[in-house]
């Protein structure tokens, strides 16, 4: 396999991961925006760009769905999606790297994801500690690892350059 093909293949793969990660972040954000009765702080962004009125109108429709959605979708799945997204980004940046720094960044995944929950438990961060959030975050990290490792395992010879 020539190196240019390996390079293009890796570039395409990492692009896919970035898109997947972005979609996961967006999906998690939409859950908060559309289905959470509480208004997240990032609603301020919408005020700044002047689309808050439109947002409230949309939420009036979507919040009616809140009562029929399972609680784990509304309150926990976003955590899993964001954990998946962060895992994907970090692994796509560092997998295949020979630098020792990669272990620091790999470690940052559980530290960041579970650390937020621990800080909510101790009351140092606003929010509610929830075991479901821990579970979904773990699922998100696991799926992120599986996604990257399966793809990389299949393409391992191409990455050696």
């Amino acid at each position: 396999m020539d190196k240019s093909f390996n390079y293009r293949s890796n570039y395409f793969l990492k692009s896919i991961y970035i898109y997947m990660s972005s979609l996961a972040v967006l999906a998690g954000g939409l859950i908060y925006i559309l289905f959470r009765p509480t208004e997240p702080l990032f609603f301020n962004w919408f005020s700044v760009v002047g689309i808050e009125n439109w947002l409230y109108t949309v939420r009036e429709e979507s919040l009616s769905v809140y009562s029929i959605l399972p609680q784990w979708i509304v309150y926990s799945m976003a955590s899993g999606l964001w954990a998946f997204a962060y895992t994907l980004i970090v692994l796509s940046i560092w997998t295949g790297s020979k630098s020792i720094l990669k272990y620091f960044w790999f470690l940052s995944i559980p530290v960041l994801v579970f650390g937020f929950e621990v800080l909510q438990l101790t009351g140092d961060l606003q929010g509610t500690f929830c075991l479901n959030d821990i579970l979904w975050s773990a699922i998100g990290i696991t799926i992120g690892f599986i996604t990257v490792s399966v793809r990389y395992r299949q393409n391992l010879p191409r990455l050696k350059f």
Partner: protein
Amino acid sequence: MKKVTFKKSFWQSVLSMIALAVFAYVAIASFGVASQKRQLPDGRYEVSKQYAKGNTETVTGNVDFNGRWDGPVTVEYQDNNYILTHTEEVNMEDGYRHGISKVTYPNGKVENICYRHGTRVDSENCEKKSAAIDSEDNTGYGIFSYKYPWFAFKLDALGFDDNYVKAYIDTLESILYSTEFGLEEFDDMYENVLDILEETPYDSIIQVNAELSIFNGLDLILSHEFRLATIHSYGKSDGNTYNVVKLIYPNYLLSLNELGVTDSDFEGFCSEYDLIMSSFNPVAPDDPFFVDSMDQRMFITLDSIYSSGEESAKKSQSLKSAVLSNKDISMRDLEQEFLSRISSQSINLTPSEISEIVLFTILEKFIFGDLINSAVKEAFTIKKGIVVLPTVITVFSGNTSSTSAVLDGNVIEDGGGEVTSRGMAWGTIYNPTTDNQVLLLGTGTGEFVANLTELTEGLTYYARAFAINSAGTAYGNVISFIAQNTTGINAGDLSTLDFSIYPNPASDKITITFKAEDSEGMVFTMFDVNGKVILQKELANRVTGENIVNVDLSEIKGGLYVCQLKGDETTIAVQTLLINR
């Protein structure tokens, strides 16, 4: 090779740090603020609030049509380990504590406190008859802990026990009284003291109290007349907010007149208001979150109209920017600035200017949300011998017949001055004043009884006790009741007669339609707002089924009237009618 590896690692680290920053920011920004509300399977509502350090407050109970707590309510506090600490079980009426409140502390101590429409009264059995209360301790903390025990309880649940709160208020007062000043300077001096105390460990209670004051203010807004009119307009009427204000809340219109808003200007404003409100998707009045939708739409619409004005758009943006950048917004400064500006406004106010006035009347309720401030201010007035308005409450005792009712008034506090007159103001409009129908019932503090007679059967009445001293006229809470006999005929039920009037508003004539069960005679009567019969027409021997009758109004002057349809079987129905001339 090493150089390439280092350079690559550097850029990988940069990318990773960017990713870390983005995700950390999104995670933090996703935390919710304020409260969550949901409906339980049994129809009750549950409102949860989360405060600093993870303490949560959960209120569970039923709400009335206007979204105010009504009936038995439970308030529970949990610490950040989800352990239940404080519990309060209380009955609410129109959003105010009314009846016995049973509070349970973490150490098992139970305390019973009696309230009458949000005011603590001194009665062990919480019976109707209670003596005028007087806090023995006239310091700021003494008044605070006596008048607002539910709020002291809340502070205790959030980690500020009574001793701490006492120490805070005593410190505040000691700094406040280190300088001589008059009542008109109280608010400025109070703010200065808070600035000083924010540099001390008391900053935590100052922050929490500021947050709680906002929630208190939001509760007060629930009873604002424009809000009630909006809910009535879109929940029970035809979406014409001006007509609802004119028919049921004309005293609010009078208060707007005093701020320079004419009736015609307000009607024009309401047209624009209703146009925008009707652009939202309809929400059924029986939707569990109908009131919440109305609240949100009301503020969006008011802001939209306000921002449509060139000058106000700039002010609105600067205010929003200040809020977003977490700058302190002093409601009192806003109030002063607003009052000085409207005094120089010309006639023919624009909808944008009227929207600002309406918003101001709503938002100034927030000033009364700071209960520590209210208690310290009251202590100040007592210390200085300044006479303030009396405190009065109104209680509905019951209907004695289909045309009479009994209400009780109670002058709880005289405000430091002699109560020279007291009584009951009543009528068919919300928040009646001494300009409406009045029963004078003595002087001084204490309880008094008002017997209202010659009421119109089936009509909804409003009443407020009042008391007058040298500071002015104080009104108690407003009570609404229907004039009906106690055997339970629901005079407000239109379903059996299907009584309707059109057009409404009308000018020279109206057409009334109704259903009769058999050929019973019916009587149509029109009353003015004082209950005087203006027109009466016998509709003899109507046919079974739908009936249509025209009524000539050419001899009747313009104004607000009540139309009653009564059948031989004492079935009655009532409608209000506005005649425009």
